[in-house]
């Protein structure tokens, strides 16, 4: 039996089409994936992301522990509530998971990891606690639910749904969070739009979902989440990177912080010994068809492969991420093998869209 989130009954009641995703019975759409996609680009939509796992890390050794655990450097987030995106690497420099870590104090952090990797992540984090002899406590918070409200009107509609939340979060900057009692409101997301990710006690989730719907927020499934994140140029774990892919080859060099030479994070030696051999770039299909993951890409500089692909509702064209030789540049004409036919595509800089606008 797949796991169910605290919002499972609400999804079924709303007529969601449910699918198994990473061991969770999740909504893929509530009728039309494309309408849900446009709702997020033009107004406000919400996603049940309770299948992801929040972990609380506390203890005097928390900062030192995370500086060794993560490829990005938590030392640069010093404002309470500030968030940092990072990869967690294995010794070979492959990506165990990508995650968001929120700083609240030097001895108090919250980490949010992917659903499919959660068990693997917790085992790895505990192993690193033991290896470091770190003075920390790691507490998985399956008692919490998470709802992401995204879109240009997401914040205003959330304020309408949660009394008192506007005064507390109106001045919250992007990529920052605030705690209101047991609830955490973060101005983060995975769609390329403004909005909030709200973490709250599981027993309160269904009521908030109902109140957000009443405030005009449209329920959106995993289908729209995938097209939105692709347009926004955001990597998906297991597809655009995994345990065998270096962040340097996955378009994530910007998240690897090598500035402090004394910070010997897990995987650093491997990254230094293995400079990037590929880059992640966007593709827009010129011919008719739809790009998908794992199609062969032919460029002037050699072959590559798509890692994610879909039809973009915002661009009305098919788009993809492709891992290609380093010399491939935006503007280059390439070809993609789709079921034995070579179709024309053009390489572009990521992202494809942000804040409701097509960028390419």
């Amino acid at each position, binding site marked *: 039996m797949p796991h169910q989130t605290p919002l499972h009954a609400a999804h079924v009641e709303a007529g969601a089409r449910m699918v198994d995703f990473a061991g969770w019975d999740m909504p893929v*759409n509530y009728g039309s*994936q*494309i309408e849900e996609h446009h709702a997020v680009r033009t107004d406000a939509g919400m996603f049940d992301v309770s299948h992801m796992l929040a972990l609380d890390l506390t203890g005097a050794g928390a900062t030192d522990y995370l500086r060794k655990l993560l490829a990005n450097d938590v030392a640069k987030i010093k404002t309470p509530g500030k968030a940092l995106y990072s990869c967690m690497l294995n010794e070979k420099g492959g990506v165990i998971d990508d995650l968001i870590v929120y700083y609240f104090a030097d001895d108090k952090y919250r980490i949010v990891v992917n659903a499919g990797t959660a068990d693997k992540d917790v085992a790895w984090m505990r192993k690193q606690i033991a290896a470091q002899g770190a003075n920390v406590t790691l507490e998985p918070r399956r008692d919490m639910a998470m709802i992401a409200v995204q879109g240009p009107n997401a914040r205003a509609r959330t304020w309408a749904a949660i009394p008192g939340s506007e005064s507390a979060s109106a001045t919250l900057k992007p990529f920052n969070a605030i705690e209101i009692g047991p609830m955490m409101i973060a101005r983060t997301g995975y769609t390329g739009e403004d909005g909030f990710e709200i973490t709250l006690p599981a027993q309160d989730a269904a009521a908030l979902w109902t109140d957000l719907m009443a405030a005009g927020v449209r329920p959106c499934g995993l289908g729209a989440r995938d*097209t939105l994140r692709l347009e926004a140029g955001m990597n998906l774990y297991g597809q655009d990177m995994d345990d065998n892919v270096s962040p340097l080859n996955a378009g994530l060099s910007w998240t690897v912080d090598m500035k402090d030479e004394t910070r010997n994070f897990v995987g650093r030696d491997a990254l230094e010994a293995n400079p990037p051999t590929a880059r992640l770039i966007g593709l827009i299909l010129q011919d008719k*068809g*739809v790009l*998908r993951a794992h199609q062969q890409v032919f460029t002037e500089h050699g072959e590559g492969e798509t890692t994610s692909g879909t039809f973009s509702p915002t661009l009305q064209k098919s788009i993809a991420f492709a891992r290609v030789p380093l010399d491939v540049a935006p503007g280059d004409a390439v070809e993609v093998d789709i*079921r034995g036919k070579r179709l024309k595509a053009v390489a572009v800089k990521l992202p494809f869209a942000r804040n409701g606008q097509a960028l390419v």
Partner: protein
Amino acid sequence: MTTPADLKYTKSHEWVRVESDGTLTIGITDHAQEALGDIVFLELPEAGRAVNAGEECAVVESVKAASDIYAPVAGEIIANNEAASDAPESVNEDAYGNWLFKIKPNDIGDVDGLLDAAGYEAVAAAD
């Protein structure tokens, strides 16, 4: 989900209408379009192509995934629906009104081996 009683069906979710001239008109079922989600691209077979029963001969791509469409019986492709490939979303709107291609069967008797509406509904319910 609707399943018109005057059509024949395959286990792989195609519907088949036997025309008065003995040719077959083929599309995907309402159940199939609903499962696929928003359809954005159709790759249809060229007229003149000979196909075997069960042979892949078209592709329906939704935002979510690509799905192969199979020839229900052996024969020759005699037409494809350009209007549908120009407006793939029309298949979501009316799966039975927007056919994909037509086949002239080698043996019209092969149609007897296809499912009737009740038989197909049982297949779809088990999906």
